[in-house]
């Protein structure tokens, strides 16, 4: 009765992997935008901004991504709002990514020496000018490797969205297994595809780290 070829399995998984890639990109880009806003709130001078951003970051870092997905998917449903799985998945992943990126970037901004703030202040620059011309260009160099490194976490995080019924690579793996009864082959392929997505990212993070360090020393 088993008339699925290996190619059938792989082909279906690869088709589903497109959604994993798309969801990863959406989460990462959306998370970056929200993350920048959070970053500015977090390191700003006011009282409300930093308090809000800090609470936000602590909440999202202190709860499992799976719970956040459940809350986005089922929570809104309680209020009679029908949330499709893809929307819940994207929103939860964007908010989750933003929390982590904001915290990574805060560390990078704070790693810029205090003297840089003082020197630019004493030259008459305002806060935004200091940020734009002095602080962020230096923080950016520090930020690139950990940011690329974190994108690996985002790719792997998308696997959890299978639980709320979004059909990406992991969910497709389950579905194909149910049809073929070959879990080892199927999940082996699933793992391999994840690895092919993540490994280049990890590797490029390492290469960037080395490159930017060298660039920093010799320009």
């Amino acid at each position, binding site marked *: 009765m088993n008339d699925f070829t290996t190619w059938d399995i792989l082909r279906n998984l690869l088709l589903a992997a497109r959604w994993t890639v798309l969801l990863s990109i959406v989460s990462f880009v959306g998370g970056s935008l929200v993350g920048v806003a959070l970053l500015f709130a977090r390191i700003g001078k006011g009282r409300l901004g930093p308090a809000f951003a800090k609470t936000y970051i602590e909440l999202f870092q202190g709860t499992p991504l799976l719970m956040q997905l459940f809350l986005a998917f089922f929570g809104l449903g309680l209020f009679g709002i029908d949330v499709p799985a893809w929307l819940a998945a994207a929103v939860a992943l964007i908010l989750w990514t933003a929390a982590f990126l904001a915290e990574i970037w805060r560390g990078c901004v704070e790693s810029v020496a205090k003297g840089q703030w003082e*020197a630019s202040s004493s030259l008459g620059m305002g806060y935004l*000018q200091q940020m734009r011309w*002095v602080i962020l260009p230096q923080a950016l160099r520090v930020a690139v490797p950990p940011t690329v490194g974190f994108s690996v976490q985002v790719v792997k995080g998308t696997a959890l969205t299978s639980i709320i019924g979004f059909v990406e690579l992991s969910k497709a793996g389950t579905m194909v297994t149910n049809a073929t009864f070959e879990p080892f082959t199927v999940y082996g392929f699933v793992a391999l595809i994840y690895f092919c997505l993540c490994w280049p990212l990890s590797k490029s993070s390492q290469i960037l780290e080395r490159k930017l360090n060298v660039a920093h020393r010799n320009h």
Partner: protein
Amino acid sequence: MSLIEITEVKKRFGDNEVLKGINIDVEPGEVIAIIGKSGSGKSTLLRCINGLETIDDGSISVAGAQLLPDELHLKALRLKVGMIFQGFNLFPHLTAGRNVMLSQMVVKKTPKAEAEVMAKKMLERVGLGHKFDAYPDQLSGGQQQRVAIARALAMQPIALLCDEITSALDPELVNEVLAVVKELASEGMTLLMVTHEMRFARDVCSRVVFMHQGRVHEIGPPEEVFANPKTPELKQFLGVTH
């Protein structure tokens, strides 16, 4: 009217009162050395004049304008008063020339070509015209500090604050920086410098301020302060034993 008027300035960090009522008036063209033990409040005083620290009491005015802690007033003040730091604080991601150009373009909105001409001129003035395209980490400490001076000068301040600007330098590099400062002094720039270079203070400065425990303990022309210290604290600081 004095150029810089410091009146009854007090500053505390928590329970620690660092400045306990400072009064100094600086005339245009004066070169003032502030000396004293570490912890006597001399760097804090300098940082207060530039608004890097807020004062708790008293007043500071520069060329008639009061120092107020909002961004608009601070910016106006900082356009008049430049500051040079012990650690140079050049922007490491920009070349020497760009370091000097940046604040002109960003703060004063000077067109790029004009800022570049000014930067070249100022780097020439500190003897580093040929280092326009060098990055800070390709320069020696003394050269970096001279770029920092050029950067401050490019904003055309009426006074410069120098916070131990030779303390982080190797001994053989101290003189090249002091030579630039001496040159500025002879051109009539108003200078307030915290320094440990006693010989320089004696040779170049018009007045010496000795600070002790947050107060101006002695003040006067260098011949007087160095040759004839009145208080036991200054005598001890100068290593004079009578």
